[in-house]
Structure formats: C-alpha cells, structure tokens
C-alpha cells in the first residue's frame, strides 16, 4: 500500500510539473474564444459546412471551424462555458487571465463597460471595415455605451407571440389567413374569452413557475408601449405608477379568469404549445425553428397552423417591444498588436456570416441582412421583420439587468397569482431593485 501511495504521489507531482512548465510551441496566433450555446462536437466537431449546420451550437461551431480552416496563421481555441458564463468571466478577470473574445448579452455590457473590464472596439472594428452604421438600430443601441461601441452585435432577440392558427381558426380569430390580434387590454380580454368559449382552452400559454425573466420582459414591453419613463435615472426604477399597475391588473385578470395556463415552468409551457394546449405562447425568437418544424409534421396540433408575430401594441403610446441580444466583447487585457489584428479579423468574419447565425431564429444585427431576400425567405421572418424598428433595450446605463429581471419576475408572480396585493408587489419590486442599484460601486 505504501509503495502504491508513493507511486501515486510521484505521478501527481509529475503532472503538476507538466501543467506548469510545458514549453510554449511556436505556431499560429492563438485566440481564446469563450462562449455559451453548448457543445455539439459529436455532430459538428470537424464540420466547416456552415450552411448545413442547424441550431445555435451547430452554427457557431461550424463558423469557428471554418475560420480556423481559412486562416492558417490564427487558431481559435474555444472555451465553452455553462450559460451564461458570467461567473467564470468575472473569475477570469479577477485572476487577470481573461479570454480574448467572449459572448455577452447586450443587457449585461454595462456591468462590465462601466468598470472598464471590456475594451471599446470602435477603432478595431474600423480597422477591418466594420461600420457601426451597418448595425440595426436595436443592435447599435444594445452595444453602444456613452457613444462608444463595446461589442460586435451578433443578433437581437425579443419575446414574440407564437400562435396556434388551428385553434385561432376554431375560435374565429383568423381573417384573410392572418391571426386577429388585440389592440387594447379590453380587446385582449374579449378575444381571450371568445377563444376560451370556442376551444375550451386557455388563450395564453405562459411559463409562470421558476421563471426568472419572462414576467419582467412583458412588463418592460408594456411599460415602453405606454411611454413610461420607468428608468429615467439608470440608478432608480419607478414602478409605483399607474402604467405598471395597469399591466399587473391585466395579467391578474387573465390569470383569475383562467385565460392562461397556470403552474407551468418553461419546459412545460414549451411542450404545452407543441401539444396544442393553448392559443398563444409568449416566448422568444429562438423557438421559431422548433415550432416551424412541428407545423410540417402531419398529426401535430400545429400542423399547417403555426404563425408568429411581434407583441401587438396594446396601449396607445407607441409600437415597441423590449429586446436584448447576443454580442462579442473583448475583455480588457494586454495583447500584442498581432493578436488584436487577429481578433478583429475574426470579428469581421462573424459579422460577414451574420445571415447564417440568423437562421437560429434570432434577428440579424445588420441592416443589410434584414433587407436581403434570402433572410426574408426564411420561415416567418417577414412577420417579425418590423422588430428592426420596434425592438428596444433598456436604457444603456442600467446595470445588473439580469438580477433586476429576476426581482421583477418574483414580485410580478406574487401579484398575478394573488399571493400579494398589486400595490405591495410594485412597492417591493421598486424597493428591491433600487437597493441593488444603490449599492453599485
């Protein structure tokens, strides 16, 4: 036993030495790219055929493979992290060893840019011919802070109304092949009741349990539609206002009248829509592909009966939908000019291939792609194209947006399900969010 333990100790010792003292081989410039979207090496590990790849993971994997194949002087080493990966990124920044390129939600950029943990990219992007003027309005707003571009936008995404047209037809809510959508809270309630009477099913399908963000995204959209200036100061939210109250009253009424599914988490709600358990599922752009596929399967409740629309304008303020997006940032660190050039070449490559990425269902970040016939030829893209003009993020200087969404969702759930009076929930939400923002450095 003693000999075995000594041998093991020797093995471990040699491994420590090996990890710390290995000589660095000469070769191509290595860029460490850190991303979420998962791993799919089994299917796409060696593929460079981007056009044939499917899904976020498949497309991003083949894109990087293609770049590596076409650029022999650069090697992109991919570090895949568990979504969203910000704990790891923060740890890497604290350790002074960040990756070279990182996926980041546009709503999170302020958390890093205001502490100068990511680099402004204006000059670098200009050096490879990427003009921020080519970004869509939403993408540009999403990656710009204090007049500087801090990220290369990859896409924008927003919540959408995914519609079961077969049930809508049965409820008499289809005209000229298009779904009849509400244009006021009153119309929404009336159509939802009509739908319930005709089909016996709830009008809305919602993820309402363990839901960290959907409630908040609905709230943002409908506050924006009422022109509510709920974040006039990026360090204070104002929710004790009639606009917010109106939204909660509406959703509580929908809940109380059984016009929505209840007690479903994201997974249950997603499969409920696939199984035809309701008329409209409030979920993001990323589900278009899956539901479009289901609509082509005979026997599916969605067979020949799937449509998707941006959130209808319920309030007479303006047509707007809250949006976020994925982007690429460069964490602050010392890098050689050669490596920086390689990083910006890769960013240019990603920009040039934004159409391929937009096949995931997300909105392209570039006007040229949106205006292209090949993008509009993709399923349902024409219906959601108006989001280019109507998608809007929160004010750019608002920090901790993920945490804010979580707090708002908790309080909204309490109010809508009747665990807390609406006024109390709004007051608590406002206090909790402002506590978070007050304690920022």
């Amino acid at each position, binding site marked *: 036993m003693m000999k075995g333990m000594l041998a093991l100790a020797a093995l*471990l010792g040699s491994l420590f030495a090996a990890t*710390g003292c290995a000589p660095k081989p000469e070769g191509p410039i290595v860029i460490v790219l850190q991303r979420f979207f998962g791993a799919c*090496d089994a299917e796409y590990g060696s593929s460079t055929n981007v056009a044939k790849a499917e*899904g976020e993971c498949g497309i991003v994997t083949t894109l990087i493979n293609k770049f590596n194949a076409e650029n022999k002087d650069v090697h992109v080493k991919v570090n895949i992290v568990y*979504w969203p990966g910000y704990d790891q990124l923060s740890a890497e920044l604290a350790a002074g060893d960040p990756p070279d390129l990182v996926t980041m939600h546009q709503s999170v950029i302020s958390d890093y840019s205001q502490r100068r943990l990511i680099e402004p990219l204006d000059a670098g992007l200009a050096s490879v011919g990427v003009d921020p003027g080519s970004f869509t309005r939403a993408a540009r707003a999403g990656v710009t802070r204090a007049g500087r571009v801090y990220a290369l936008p990859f896409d924008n995404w927003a919540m959408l109304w995914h519609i079961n047209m077969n049930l809508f037809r049965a409820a008499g809510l289809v005209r000229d092949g298009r779904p009849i959508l509400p244009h006021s809270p009153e119309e929404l309630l009336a159509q939802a009741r009509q739908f319930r009477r005709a089909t016996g099913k709830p009008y809305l399908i919602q993820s309402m349990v363990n839901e960290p963000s959907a409630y908040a995204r609905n709230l943002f959209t409908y506050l924006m539609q009422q022109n509510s200036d709920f974040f006039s100061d990026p360090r204070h939210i104002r929710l004790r206002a009639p606009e917010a109250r109106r939204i909660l009253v509406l959703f509580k009424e929908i809940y109380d009248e059984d016009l929505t599914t209840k007690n479903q988490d*994201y997974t249950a709600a997603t*499969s409920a829509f*696939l*199984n035809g358990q309701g008329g409209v599922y409030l979920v993001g752009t990323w589900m278009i592909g899956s539901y479009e596929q289901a609509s082509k399967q005979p026997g599916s409740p969605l067979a020949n009966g799937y449509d998707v629309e941006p959130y209808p304008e319920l309030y007479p303020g303006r047509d707007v939908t809250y949006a976020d997006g994925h982007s690429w940032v460069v964490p602050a660190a010392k890098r050689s000019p050669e490596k920086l050039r390689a990083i910006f070449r890769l960013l240019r490559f990603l920009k040039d291939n934004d159409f391929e990425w937009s096949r995931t269902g997300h909105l392209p970040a570039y006007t040229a792609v949106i205006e292209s016939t090949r993008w509009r030829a993709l399923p349902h893209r024409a219906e959601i194209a108006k989001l280019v003009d109507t998608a809007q993020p929160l004010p750019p200087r608002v920090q901790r947006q993920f945490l804010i969404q979580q707090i708002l969702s908790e309080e909204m759930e309490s109010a809508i399900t009747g665990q807390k009076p609406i006024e109390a929930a709004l007051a608590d939400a406002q206090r909790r969010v402002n506590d978070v923002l007050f304690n920022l450095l």
Partner: protein
Amino acid sequence: MSAATKMQSRSPIARPSRLSIAALAVAALVMAAPLFWTLLLSLKPNAELMRGTQTAFSPPYTLQNYSDILGHSAVFGWLLNSTIVSLGVTLGVLVLSSLAGYGFARLRFPGRDAIFVIVLFGLAIPEQSVIIARHQMFSALHLHNSYGGLIFPGLAAPFGVFLMTQYFRAIPKELEEAAWLDGASRFRTFWRILIPLSLPAQATLGIFTFLSTWNDYWWPLISATNSDMYTLTVGVASSQMNFAQTNGLGFLMAQAVFASVPILIVYVIFQRYIVAGVSRAAT
C-alpha cells in the same frame, strides 16, 4: 414468553416481518424511482421529450445521447482531471489528517487544545465566506487552471482532523508503549501500529473525501476556467445548450448518468466501508 425467546426475538438476525419488508420495498422503490426515471429519459430522443416526458414509457429508445457525450473530444480529459483531483485531494487529506490527528491525540505541546479548537472552528465556516479571499490568494500564486489550484483548497479538512484525532484517542496507548519497549521509534510506531489500526477510519474519510471532491462544482467553476482543466462536473455543464431542459432533456439526463457512473463504481467497490462509515458516524 421465556427470557431466551425474548432475546431471540430481539436478536439482529431475527426474521423481519412481511410488513417491514413491504415498507422497505416501497421506500427503496421511492428512492430508486428518480434514478430509473433519469436513466429512462436518457435513452429517449430529445425531440420526443420536448413534446412530453410521458413518451419515455414507449419506444423508440436510442443511445444517441450517450454517443453525443462520448463524441465530445474533451470528455475523457475532464474524466482524467476529475480522477487526478479527487485522488490528489483524498490522498492529501488522508496523510495530513492522520498526521494532525496523531499529533492532537498523542503529543503534548503548548497550545495544543487551543489549536484543536481553532481547527474545529473550520467545521463551522462555510466555503462561501472565504471563496473571494481564496480566489485572490490563488490568483496571486498563479495557481488557477492547474491541478494544484484544484487540489490544495480541499486539503484543509477540519472534519478529517477531528475524525482521526478521535479515532487515535480511542486506540489504547499500551499498544504504542509495547512497540517503544521493542525499540520502535515514534514514527515507526505511528506508521506500523497506528495507521494499520486506523484503516477503517481512513477508509471512511477517504471515501467521503473522494465523493465530495468528485461532485464539487463551485470551486472548479471559478478556478479551472480553461476548458482543458475542467473537471467532469464543470465540463458536462458547459456542454449543455441553452434551454437544455427543454430541447435537450435526454442529453441532460445522459450527462447525469455518465457523470455518476464512476461514483457508482466507487460505491460498489467500497460499499462495505461506506455503510460501516455511515453507521460509525451515526453512533
């Protein structure tokens, strides 16, 4: 009923009643159900599970999810990392806890009891409260993304020191004194007499240390940020796609099964020691 009959009916080898067997069977079933459910889901295509998990009870079944895991080129590296780190921590904890336990149990030195109390305080301090300071310390020492960075924090094991101290205290001193009379040195006595006698405690401590290190997620997540240094827990989490619980449920379950297989093997091999260790801890 005679006293002998009463004793017989209370003896540990008394035949259990049908009721208690049935109760045990139900309890076992309840505890095993999530494991079987996980296994069943791992054998189903993801697209089917997206429609509903009730499809798990009917064919088709597939090994595609497992093949997707094994198709990831890094997975065996993560397995190796987890094995090295778990064995390294286990070995280190056994050596250090045995030495410290012997010192506290057998040696007299100034401040011994005070130091022992300080060590015991370590049992009450949660990892969360020291994680930032530890992360900064390891940054300063350039130990992140190394086996040392993953192993060293696990070596501070107050429970191990406490366990070994108590175990050594329970061993009669006469055994050591007899060895000294025969001319053995203190270290030789420790190595040849006390260590073999403490093997049951070593086995218990070793197994629990191995299991907790294997399952550790948080520290590897923020220390081993380079995918080459991921442990299995961090690696399998990283390979999940967004919304995996919805559109990749089978893959997620296959990951859970895959990650638990090595632990299952350890359990099967050391089952006797684990059961003995748990019952010893309970008494």
